[in-house]
């Protein structure tokens, strides 16, 4: 037992990432999500060669459908794990969180990639996107330009770089001596630039997550006054922060449930604590803004908009308050529930001004069509399937060192066993050898 939490009996189960090794790679859930992903991507290909109109239910009053408003504007908040957890770990020096950085990084990378794929298949004249290469053609007043530049660079450069170590690690341990030597040579320069890349990996999402909110500023009065505010960029950023923290908590718990890994309530409790603080900051700005703009009375007017606001707030304030209690933070079920609810609240906050509280002058209505929904589900399933695969191939999900050592021997032995065409039976858990 390696307890290193003063005054608590929690065990430090999470010491390094360990691949999920005791299960086959292809499982029914993977096949299920893979099939959904294949369907979504096939539809996306069809969409690329056909006009947008018949495919999607978007119209001129609601020109943005769920691909933009949900996959990009809303889901990338869940993908802000690298930003939120990373800043806590590297800027505010919460060392415990380093073990969960990989989970955050992989999930964040997948959310961003699938969001960018969704964006790519949503624009109507994608062939003109090459104009991004000519800075003199950029309209620097436009939040849309900022996102078009910042998000791809972030995902392809900074997030990809931060995910390099876990890929390189696999090649190191499964590769030839030449590979090992090459990787050993690559490591020092990568380490030298690592802090700068990490800096960029926080500056860029700070910019584009707030610009996602900034997009909605131009919509002006089309967005209900309870949501339309000059503070939209800041609020979107804070919502990204709290969603990132909440989602990393949620996904760690779900992954450990699915793969029977022990959990580390010290780390998760820390995440829960940070989630609670971030939520309070968000709520402070939210209600401070409503008060400053004189909208508090309509926030409590109990008409349908007020009820929506109160519901979204409840989804955030309940976890925020609950997670102040150490008991809640250290009980798996309550921690899971609170993280899930907080994520939903953050997502709802980011989604509402784009569609639900968005009221163009025309008496218009928008609900996504079936192909639109299938494509959205497809992109999300792609992320889920890829995450599941990543956990099996790379050392992402945290475990303890005993687990790592056991994994090493297990994998080596299985390979030998396969080569010798015999099976070895292994004890079920790493603690019995």
């Amino acid at each position, binding site marked *: 037992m390696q307890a290193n939490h003063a005054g608590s009996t929690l065990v430090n189960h999470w010491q390094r990432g360990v691949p999920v090794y005791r299960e086959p790679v292809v499982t029914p859930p993977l096949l299920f999500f893979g099939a959904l992903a294949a369907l979504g991507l096939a539809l996306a290909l069809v969409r690329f060669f056909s006009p947008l109109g018949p495919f999607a239910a978007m119209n001129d009053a609601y020109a943005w459908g769920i691909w933009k408003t949900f996959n990009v504007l809303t889901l990338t908040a869940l993908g802000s794990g690298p930003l939120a957890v990373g800043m806590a770990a590297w800027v505010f020096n919460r060392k415990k969180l380093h073990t969960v950085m990989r989970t955050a990084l992989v999930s964040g990378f997948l959310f961003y990639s699938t969001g960018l794929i969704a964006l790519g298949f949503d624009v109507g004249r994608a062939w003109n996107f090459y104009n991004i290469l000519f800075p003199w053609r950029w309209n620097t007043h436009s939040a849309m330009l900022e996102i078009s530049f910042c998000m791809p660079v972030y995902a392809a450069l900074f997030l990809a770089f931060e995910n390099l170590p876990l890929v390189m690690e696999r090649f190191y341990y499964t590769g030839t001596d030449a590979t090992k030597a090459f990787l050993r040579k690559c490591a020092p320069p990568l380490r030298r630039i690592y802090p700068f890349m990490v800096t960029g990996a926080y500056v860029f999402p700070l910019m584009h997550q707030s610009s996602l909110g900034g997009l909605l500023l131009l919509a002006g009065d089309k967005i209900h006054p309870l949501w339309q505010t000059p503070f939209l960029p800041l609020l979107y950023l804070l919502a990204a922060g709290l969603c990132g923290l909440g989602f990393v908590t949620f996904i760690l*718990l779900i992954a450990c449930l699915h793969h029977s890994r022990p959990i580390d309530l010290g780390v998760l409790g820390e995440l829960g604590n940070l989630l609670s603080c971030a939520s309070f900051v968000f709520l402070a700005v939210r209600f401070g803004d409503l008060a400053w703009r004189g909208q508090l009375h309509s926030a409590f007017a109990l008409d349908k908009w007020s009820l929506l606001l109160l519901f979204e707030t409840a989804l955030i304030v309940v976890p925020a308050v609950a997670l102040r209690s150490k008991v809640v933070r*250290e*009980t798996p079920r*309550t921690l899971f529930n609170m993280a899930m609810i907080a994520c939903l609240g953050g997502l709802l906050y980011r989604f509402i001004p784009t569609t639900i509280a968005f009221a163009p*002058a025309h*008496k218009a209505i928008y609900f*996504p069509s079936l192909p639109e929904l299938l494509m959205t589900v497809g992109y999300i399933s792609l992320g889920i399937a890829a995450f599941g695969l990543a956990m099996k191939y790379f050392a992402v999900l945290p475990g303890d060192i005993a687990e790592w050592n056991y994994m090493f021997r297990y994998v080596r032995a299985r390979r030998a066993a396969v080569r010798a065409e015999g099976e070895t039976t292994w004890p079920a858990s790493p*603690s019995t050898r």
Partner: protein
Amino acid sequence: MLSSLVTSSRVLETIDERLMRCGVSRRAFLQFCSSLMIAAPFGLPITDKQTPEEVAHGLGKVIRPPVIWLHFQDCTGCTETLLRNSHPDLGDLILNIISLEYHETLMAGSGKQAEETLAEAVRNYSGKYVCVVEGSIPTGEKGIYMKLAGRPAMEVLHDVGGKAAAIIAIGSCASWGGIPSADPNPTGAVGVADLLPHKTIVNIPGCPPNPYTLLGVVLQFAASGSLPELDEERRPKFAFDRNIHEHCPRRAHFDAGRFVKQFGDQGHREGWCLYELGCKGPDTHAGCSTRHFNEIPDVWPIGIGAPCIGCTEKSIAFRVPMFKVVQIHTPANPPDTYAPINAPQGTVSPVATGVTGLVVGALLGAGYVASRKFSTVRGDESAPGTQSPPSAGPPDGGEGSEERK
């Protein structure tokens, strides 16, 4: 042009001189000029004047142009339509305005006399006369299907038409083949322009066409030596630049959606639009909707309740079934319908809504089921889903964990 007409051996008089000699009243001539102005309101310099008096003044000075009128595979309908005007007696006026040298239906002579007249006219006015052609020309079997004085029509056309200053192809048959050219076109009937593509030809299609169109063309030619502006099918723009639909008296019914469904129904009795009976008005260029026939208002196909068959158009007449409905190519905004302020947009698919509801429900359900798998014991760090039910395990999760290593 004009000077050569004057110095020809046959003396040609001006229209004024002729009218005076024949005792046609000034009033009748002015009525003719009014009709001409209505027939050709735009694009014709001779009628582009303020009053019939001015038109008459201009026309009076015009030297009567010699006209040779040929008939080939025709029904003589075009000539008949020219003569079917009696207020005033146009037959007389026509014969006084133009110098009709040869016309098989109207001339007194026949046989050898007629042949000689033709030859003489062609010789005397070679290069100066206007040749009017009525009827299509058969080209099948070396053109034996129609012969004039033993010569095939093709040969006559080449001879007489070839020496004309200008050719006017009157009627659909002469313009593009007309009825004889209908499927399977056994005689190989074609229009004048198909045989003499390089001559100056004015097509005046119609079955029959409006007589005033012909007069406008001929008189302009006589007055200035030039022909009116023609479109790509060599039809004078002043008469063929608009389609029936644009000026139809029943247009208000079309715009309001009042259509006749079958002959004799109530709508038909009320004079509603004939579009659904296959009226070709929208695709047919002609002036019939403003200039009716026989000088009696509403004496024209649509006016009497028969849908237009598109008799001027090569691609429609005698090819497209009479009762087949055509597409409207230039739909205009009907005068009595307006868009509302901020019309509604967007539709909701019930299937999509249902699927979304199911998926959201499934996700929430899965979330609930998943949450049940987590331990409610504080500090329980064992792998979720593997721990024993909440009733077992340490009594309170706060104190030491002797059971665990």
